[in-house]
């Protein structure tokens, strides 16, 4: 596994953006929360399956929850992507759906965009829609619903907008859910009316939903494992948690725990709450550091807070530990690169909204054309950023203060990759 990780890191230059990025960045908004994917009775869903059985620096192998055996049908290579997947993976209700045979009416339910990633997603979706319209795949205008008041942003609020879309008679609804679970009932209802729901980044556990999502577990586990390996399984670890109350956060936290469980010599000396907001992470870390003078070798942050972590250490003048840069941003990579000069190395995962939104839209179109999705959740192995491929993600002249996303790198779920998840993609 160890070697394979390396190979993958070398051979595949894959950009991946953690699913949590979108949801949680929005979720933090207005102090309101969302939840990604599962969380049945207290989250931590992967606990059910076998315990982490791996050496230090390796990602444990945990069979996904596959009630319909849908994953089993997939080619072995694809199955790897479902390792330790947080939520159940259902078979899709749309497998036998006939082609729509006419231009589709499209609905789009999203959250107030408060960052570059979310903005990019919206922008790309509109672009894809325009293109599809030119190709005669869709008609009319993109019917949008967004929460008016970020302060009262609750799952209930989004469901209301979603239901309005359903009533407005669209054929497919693209949704970036605040809470995957909250949507289930609504999506089932819509599905029974024959309306397809395509969710990005967070998993709606309904067979009527086609989820295009990152694997929240691997997304944290793989870079963490790499860094642990770089440290030879020794050292002090600080964990920067995300917005607690989100199941993605719980899953990610579990991932860190599992990986470190295999490393007896790595000691978690403390945890702080970063709430997935870099400035918050920075502030909390400063508090933490002022009571923890000892050397810190690794900071495991649960996504998108890399820049905050770097900033905290830089501003206190302490030497920067290896930052697990899951959901890297231009800012965090720039900080990494600056340090790389004197042999600093770590690992992370990257990606941006544009490429995700593109794949996302395509999936929806495929389903409408009766391509027959084999499985209700389409995911992929997160791709890891190492010093070898750092350049592929780092935008030209990026500064640590930049807000931008990382560069594309290799396409995220390109058509041929997606094709493997459908019975008859040829139609497309």
């Amino acid at each position, binding site marked *: 596994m160890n070697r394979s990780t390396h190979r993958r890191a070398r051979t595949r230059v894959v950009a991946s953006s953690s699913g949590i990025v979108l949801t949680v960045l929005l979720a933090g908004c207005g102090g309101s929360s969302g939840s990604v994917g599962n969380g049945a009775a207290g989250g931590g869903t992967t606990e059910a399956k076998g315990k982490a059985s791996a050496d230090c620096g390796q990602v444990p192998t945990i069979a996904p929850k596959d009630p319909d055996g849908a994953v089993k049908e997939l080619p072995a290579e694809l199955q790897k992507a479902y390792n330790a997947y947080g939520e159940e993976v259902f078979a899709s209700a749309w497998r036998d759906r006939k082609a729509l045979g006419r231009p589709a009416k499209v609905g789009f339910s999203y959250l107030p965009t408060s960052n570059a990633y979310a903005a990019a997603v919206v922008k790309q979706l509109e672009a894809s829609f325009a293109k599809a319209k030119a190709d005669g795949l869709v008609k009319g205008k993109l019917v949008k619903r967004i929460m008016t*008041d970020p302060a*009262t942003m609750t799952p209930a609020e989004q469901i209301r907008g979603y239901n309005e879309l359903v009533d407005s008679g669209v054929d497919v609804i693209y949704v970036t859910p605040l809470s995957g679970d*909250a949507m289930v009932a609504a999506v089932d209802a819509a599905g029974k009316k024959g309306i397809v729901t395509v969710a990005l980044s967070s998993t709606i556990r309904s067979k009527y939903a086609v989820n295009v999502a990152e694997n929240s577990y691997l997304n944290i586990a793989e870079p963490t494992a790499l860094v642990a390996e770089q440290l030879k399984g020794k050292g002090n670890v600080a964990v920067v948690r995300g917005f607690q109350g*989100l199941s993605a956060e719980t899953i990610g936290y579990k991932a860190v725990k599992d990986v470190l469980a295999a490393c007896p010599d790595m000691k978690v000396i403390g945890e702080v709450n970063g709430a997935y907001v870099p400035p918050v992470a920075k502030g909390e870390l400063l508090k933490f550091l002022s009571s923890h003078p000892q050397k810190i070798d690794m900071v495991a942050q649960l996504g998108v807070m890399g820049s905050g972590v770097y900033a905290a250490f830089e501003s206190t003048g302490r030497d920067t530990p290896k930052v697990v840069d899951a959901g890297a941003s231009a800012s965090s990579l720039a900080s990494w690169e600056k340090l790389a000069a004197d042999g600093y190395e770590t690992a992370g995962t990257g990606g941006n909204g544009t490429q995700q939104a593109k794949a996302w839209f395509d999936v929806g179109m495929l389903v409408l054309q009766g391509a027959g999705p084999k499985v209700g959740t389409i995911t992929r192995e997160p791709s890891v950023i190492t010093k070898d491929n750092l350049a592929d993600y780092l935008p030209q002249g990026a500064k640590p203060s930049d807000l931008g996303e990382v560069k594309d790198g290799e396409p995220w779920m390109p058509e041929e990759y997606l094709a493997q998840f459908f019975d008859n993609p040829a139609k497309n």
Partner: protein
Amino acid sequence: MSTTNHPALTPVPDPGPQTTATTAPRRSLRSLFARHTYLFALGLALALLVANLVNQPNFGATSQLANLAPLGIAAMASVPSIMSGRGGIDLSISPLMTLSALLYATQLHPIGLGGYVALPVLMVTGALVGTLTGLLIVVGRLQPIVVTLAMFFVLTGVDLKLAPSPTTVSGTWMANFAGSMGPVPGGLVALAIPVAVWLLITRLTTYGSLLRSVGGNDVTAFTSGVPVGAVRVLAYAMGGAMAAVGGLVLIGLASTAEAGTSSAYTLIAIAAVALGGIPLQGGGGGIANALAGAAAIYLLQSLLGVLQVSQTWLQVIYGALLISAVLFGAIAARELKAGR
């Protein structure tokens, strides 16, 4: 706001009160508005409703009612404390709603109290929390905003402890709130419960009159032998009980309970109450005001959604409309005062 009205400078009650005093109040529109302060918000809400219906042919009353419920209930729950006067206000309503949702999802549902049984249980719990708040304010003689702010923090923390991550409780009885119960929309039922509580206590018992009197002039009430402290505590208790219902509606709508929603309704609920025309210095108004105000805000949000306002402009327009609504309300109110 006491900062503006000015005993020494405002005109003395009125010149010939003898006349107004002896002749019954004129049944004019003006006096009608004066007596039913919620009419302004109601009118606003109706206008917005029409606008919505026009822009959204299939409005789906059932689901809309269900979606209105949480804000509506949060607003209603804020009413008793505000009416009780002396700066009464309850900032801890929103986290309390979430608390009841979480208690249901993490405690009651697992032990098989998933049905409507949970409703009374949680309402009592909510009432108890409210009572605690009330006691802190009355016995401790602390400013309500201070106490309830503290309670806000405490309850938010408790919520997080109860459910570190969202808890799913799909397909429970509470789901009916989102759908319909027999012929009746579930949302309507949800809204009806607090209303019922309010009406039962304030109409059938002397409490309603006492609450208004205490809010209007607690010194008078006190010297006339009204147990002012008890009245206040009970007000907060009522608020708590109502809030509990709101939490269950959230579950019904989202089939999850999450600590994250703790602060969602704190400010908007008070905004709704203010828009509904309830004087924040207490004594006046009623639950109808809160409902009307909440409906207005809800429909405003909904309309902006329907109109596909670009997200960048959304907040600007939303805020502007909110202000102008309150502004008109205030001016109308002052007009009426002048007219009386």
